[in-house]
C-alpha cells in the first residue's frame, strides 16, 4: 500500500490553517511586488523603447532638449566603476577574512570583524561627503599625479587629475563593498572543518600553504559568489557615486575623467525631467539596472550555495575534535 502525501489535508486544525494563510499572504505579495516592479519599469519605458529601440544602449548622445537618448556612457560608467571596485576590494576583503579566521586570535578576530562589518552601516551619503572632502583632494594632489607619472603610458592614467571622477567613484565603491565580501568570505572560511586544515598541517605545510591548500582552494566558489554579491551592491550604489563621479555624460578611457552611472543619472535628472520621453528614458535606465543586478545576484546565489556544499557525503560522520 502506498501513501501519497497530501499537503492540503495536512493542516487539519483550524489554527494551523489560519497560520498557514497568514504566512502565505506576505510571501506571495513579495513575489508579486517583484514582478510588478519589473512590469511597471517596462511599461513606463515604452515611449523611449518605441522611439529608439536598441540605439538607446548603443549610442552616447544624451540630449533631453531634442529628446535623443543614448545610455552607453552610463552603462560604461557603471561597469567600469564597479570593476575598479571589485579589483581593489577582492584581494583586500579575502585578505581581511583570512587574517580574521586564520591568523588573528579569536577575540581580536571578533572585534575587528565587527568593526569591518560596521563599515557597511555607514550611510552612503556620509561616504560621499568623506569622498568629496578627503578622498578626492588626495587623489587630485597625490595619487593621480603619481599614477600619471609611473603608468601614464596607459590610456587609463592620462589627462588632467580632477580628483572627482571614475577612479574616485571606484575607490569609494571598493570601500563600501569590502564588508560584504569579507564577511561572506569569513563565513565560508569558518565553515571549512578543522580537520581540513589539520590535514595540511600534518603533512608539513607552512601556515600560508595550509591557507592556500585547505582554505582558499576549498572556498574558491564561495569567494566568487561573495565577489559577485559585492558587485551587485556596487552596480546599484547611488548616493556616494553621484557625489564623486563628476556626472559627465561621456565615455572616456581615462579613469581620472568624470563620468556617470545608471544610478547617478537617475538620481540627478529624475526631478528635472519634464518631457515624457525623458522620463521614459530614465525609467529604461532603471529597467536595465534592475535586470543587471537581478542576474548578478542570481549568479551569486548559485555560486555560494555550491561553495558551502563542499566534500563528499561520506565525510560527515564522526565526532568533533
Amino acid at each position: 500500500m502506498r501513501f501519497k502525501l497530501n499537503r492540503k489535508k495536512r493542516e487539519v486544525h483550524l489554527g494551523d490553517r489560519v497560520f498557514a494563510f497568514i504566512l502565505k499572504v506576505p510571501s506571495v505579495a513579495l513575489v508579486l511586488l517583484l514582478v510588478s516592479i519589473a512590469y511597471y519599469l517596462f511599461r513606463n519605458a515604452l515611449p523611449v523603447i518605441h522611439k529608439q529601440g536598441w540605439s538607446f544602449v548603443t549610442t552616447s548622445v544624451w540630449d533631453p532638449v531634442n529628446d535623443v537618448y543614448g545610455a552607453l556612457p552610463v552603462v560604461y560608467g557603471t561597469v567600469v566603476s564597479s570593476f575598479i571596485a571589485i579589483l581593489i576590494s577582492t584581494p583586500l576583503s579575502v585578505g581581511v577574512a583570512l587574517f580574521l579566521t586564520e591568523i588573528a586570535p579569536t577575540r581580536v578576530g571578533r572585534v575587528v570583524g565587527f568593526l569591518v562589518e560596521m563599515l557597511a552601516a555607514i550611510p552612503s551619503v556620509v561616504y560621499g561627503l568623506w569622498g568629496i572632502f578627503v578622498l578626492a583632494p588626495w587623489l587630485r594632489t597625490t595619487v593621480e599625479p603619481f599614477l600619471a607619472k609611473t603608468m601614464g603610458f596607459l590610456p587609463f592614467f592620462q589627462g588632467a587629475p580632477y580628483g572627482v571622477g571614475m577612479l574616485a567613484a571606484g575607490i569609494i565603491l571598493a570601500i563600501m563593498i569590502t564588508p560584504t565580501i569579507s564577511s561572506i568570505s569569513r563565513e565560508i572560511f569558518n565553515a571549512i572543518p578543522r580537520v581540513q586544515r589539520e590535514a595540511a598541517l600534518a603533512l608539513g605545510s607552512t601556515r600560508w600553504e595550509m591557507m592556500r591548500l585547505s582554505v582558499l582552494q576549498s572556498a574558491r566558489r564561495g569567494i566568487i559568489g561573495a565577489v559577485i554579491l559585492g558587485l551587485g551592491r556596487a552596480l546599484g550604489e547611488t548616493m556616494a557615486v553621484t557625489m564623486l563621479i563628476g556626472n559627465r555624460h561621456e565615455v572616456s578611457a581615462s579613469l581620472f575623467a568624470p563620468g556617470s552611472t545608471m544610478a547617478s543619472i537617475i538620481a540627478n535628472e529624475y526631478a528635472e525631467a519634464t518631457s515624457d520621453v525623458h522620463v521614459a528614458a530614465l525609467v529604461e535606465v532603471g529597467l536595465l539596472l534592475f535586470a543587471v543586478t537581478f542576474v548578478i545576484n542570481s549568479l551569486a546565489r548559485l555560486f555560494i550555495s555550491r561553495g558551502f556544499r563542499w566534500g563528499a557525503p561520506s565525510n560527515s560522520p564522526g565526532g568533533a575534535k
Partner: protein
Amino acid sequence: MYSLLSTQNLSASFGSTQVLKNIQMDFDEFTVSAIIGPSGCGKSTFIRCLNRLHEEVAEASATGKVLLQGHDIYASDVDPVAIRRKIGMVFQKPNPFPSLSIFDNVAIGLKLAGVRRGAILRETVERSLKLAALWEEVKDKLNSQGTSLSGGQQQRLCIARALAVEPSVLLMDEPTSALDPISTAKIEELMTELKKTVTIVIVTHNMQQAARISDKTAFFLLGEMIEYGETSELFTAPKDQRTERYITGRFG
C-alpha cells in the same frame, strides 16, 4: 640506545585544564603501538603532541620532551613543519583535500616539500597507493576528485598521502571509527604490512582492534598512562586493577 620515539614527562593542557600528566613512553622502530582508554582520557591529545599538532589549537600548551631519534622535537630551534614531514598523521575522519584529484592528494606532500619532477611524483604516487592497498581500485581514475571515493577508500587515500613523504612514524587517531567493518578489516590488514617500513602509533576506541594489530598497548585513564606493555600481556595479565576493569568491560 635510543628508542625511535619517546616522551619524557609530557604534560598537555587546554587553557587551565590539564589533560595529560607526565607521560613517559618509548616506541620502538617497526612496531605498532596502540593506545586505548575511555573517551576524554587524553589519548588523542597525546598523539597530537607527538607531531606538534596539539599546539595549533587555541590556548593549547605542552611541557616535557618528545624525542625523535634522541632529539627533542620541542627544542626552540626545531621547525614544526620539518617534524610533521617525519611524523605523519591519519585522522579520525577521512579528510582528503576536496579540491584535489586522487593523484594530487597523494603528491601534495612532495609538492609542498619542493619536489617538482613529474617522474618522481608519478613513481611516488604509485608506490604510496600500492602501499595503502588502493592502487588497483583507483589506477584508472587518478584524475577524479579524492572525495569521489567511498569512506574506506578515502581513508586509505589519506594513508597513502601520509606515506608519500616517507615518514619514519605514522600516527593514527582512531582511523577506523568512521568506517564500516569491511573497510576497517582492510585497514587493519594494511597496518601489519605497513609496519615493515614505518613505526605506527594508533589511538583506538576498540580494544579488539588493539589486541589484533598491536605489538604493545598502553592504557590511558584521566590523562595518566596507567599501564604500558606487550599487548598479549596487557590483555591477558594486566598488572593494574584499573586496566583489568577496563578491558573486561566493567567501565568506560
